C-alpha cells in the first residue's frame, strides 16, 4: 500500500484537538487560540500540532466540505469496474488521473454477486452528464473492462464525517 502504510500515533492532546474540531473549526478570528484556551495550551502549540498532523497526513487538509446537492451536483454516480487484477493498479492510476474522477479505489470483489474491483466516483449536474463521463472511462479501459455498472445515490442518509468517541 502507498503512503497510507506509514502510521503515527496520536498523542492524547492531538486526539483532543481532532475531537474538538471534528464538527468544525471555531468560526472566530483566532480559532487555534480559542482551541488552546479550551484545553489549556497556547495557540502556538495548537498551530504547531495542527501543522505537524498536516505534514504527516493525519489531517489531509483543513477545508470546506460542500453538500453536492445544495451546490447543484445532483447526480452522484459510483462507477464500478471489473478489470484484471494484474492490470488494476495501472488502470486505476489512469482513471484516477481523469479530471472529473474525485475518488478512485481498488476494492475486493465479492463473487458471485459483486465482480467489481475498481471504483471511481463521478459527480455531475445531471445523470446524463455523469453517463457521458462514465463513457469516457469505458473508452479508456477498452477491452480490459469485463463489466461495469453505475450506482447513483438517491438519498444522503448521513454525512457527519469521522467522529472519535470521547
Amino acid at each position, binding site marked *: 500500500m502507498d503512503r497510507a502504510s506509514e502510521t503515527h500515533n496520536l498523542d492524547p492532546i492531538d486526539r483532543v484537538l481532532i475531537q474538538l474540531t471534528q464538527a468544525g473549526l471555531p468560526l472566530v478570528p483566532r480559532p487555534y487560540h480559542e482551541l488552546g484556551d479550551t484545553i489549556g495550551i497556547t495557540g502556538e502549540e495548537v*498551530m504547531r500540532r495542527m501543522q505537524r498532523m498536516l505534514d*504527516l497526513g493525519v489531517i489531509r487538509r483543513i477545508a*470546506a466540505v460542500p453538500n453536492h446537492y445544495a451546490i447543484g451536483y445532483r447526480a452522484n454516480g459510483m462507477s464500478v469496474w471489473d478489470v484484471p487484477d494484474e492490470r488494476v493498479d495501472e488502470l486505476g492510476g489512469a482513471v484516477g488521473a481523469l479530471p472529473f474522477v474525485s475518488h478512485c479505489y481498488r476494492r475486493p470483489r*465479492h463473487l458471485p454477486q459483486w465482480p467489481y474491483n475498481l471504483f471511481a466516483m463521478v459527480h455531475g449536474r445531471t445523470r446524463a452528464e455523469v453517463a457521458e463521463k462514465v463513457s469516457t472511462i469505458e473508452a479508456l479501459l477498452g477491452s480490459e473492462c469485463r463489466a461495469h455498472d453505475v450506482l447513483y445515490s438517491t438519498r444522503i442518509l448521513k454525512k457527519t464525517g469521522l467522529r472519535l468517541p470521547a
Partner: protein
Amino acid sequence: MLEIGMSEVVLDAIDRAVVNRLQNGFPVCERPYLEAAESLGIDETDLIARLRRLLDAGVLTRFGPLVQIERAGGAFVLAAMQVPADDVERVAAIVNSRPEVAHNYLRDHRFNLWFVLAGESLERLEDASSWIEAQTGYPVVAMPKLREYFLGLRLPV
C-alpha cells in the same frame, strides 16, 4: 436527513469563491480567516459570516480538518447492504445510530445501502459491523480500500 430533492441554495459570486477556495485548504496561522479573506478580497468578518450562513443553509456540511485516520492507525471501510425497500428506514436508523458510521448513502442498485465506517482501529469497525448485522438481520459486505489511486474531490460552483 439531506434529501436529494433539497433545493439548490442561491449563492452569490463571493459565496462561490469562498466555497471553491476553501475546498482546497485553509491556513494554520494566528488569523487564518483574515488571511483567507484577503486572498478572496473580502474582510475577515464577512468571511466568517458567510461560512456560518453556508453551514446553516447546508451548502457546506463541514468546515474544518479532514482527518485521514489511517495515518494514525485507524481505518475507513466502505460497506454495502442489500435491504428491501420497505425496510430501509428502520435499517438506516440502526446504521446511522453508530458513531463509527461517517456517511451513509442510498443508491439505486440491489446493494442499496452504502456506508463508510471510520474509526481508530479496525477491530472497532468490525464490532460495529457485527452489531449492525445482528440488529438489522442483514449481512454487511465490507469493501475496504486496497489501494487509493487519487483523491482530490473539488466541486467548482
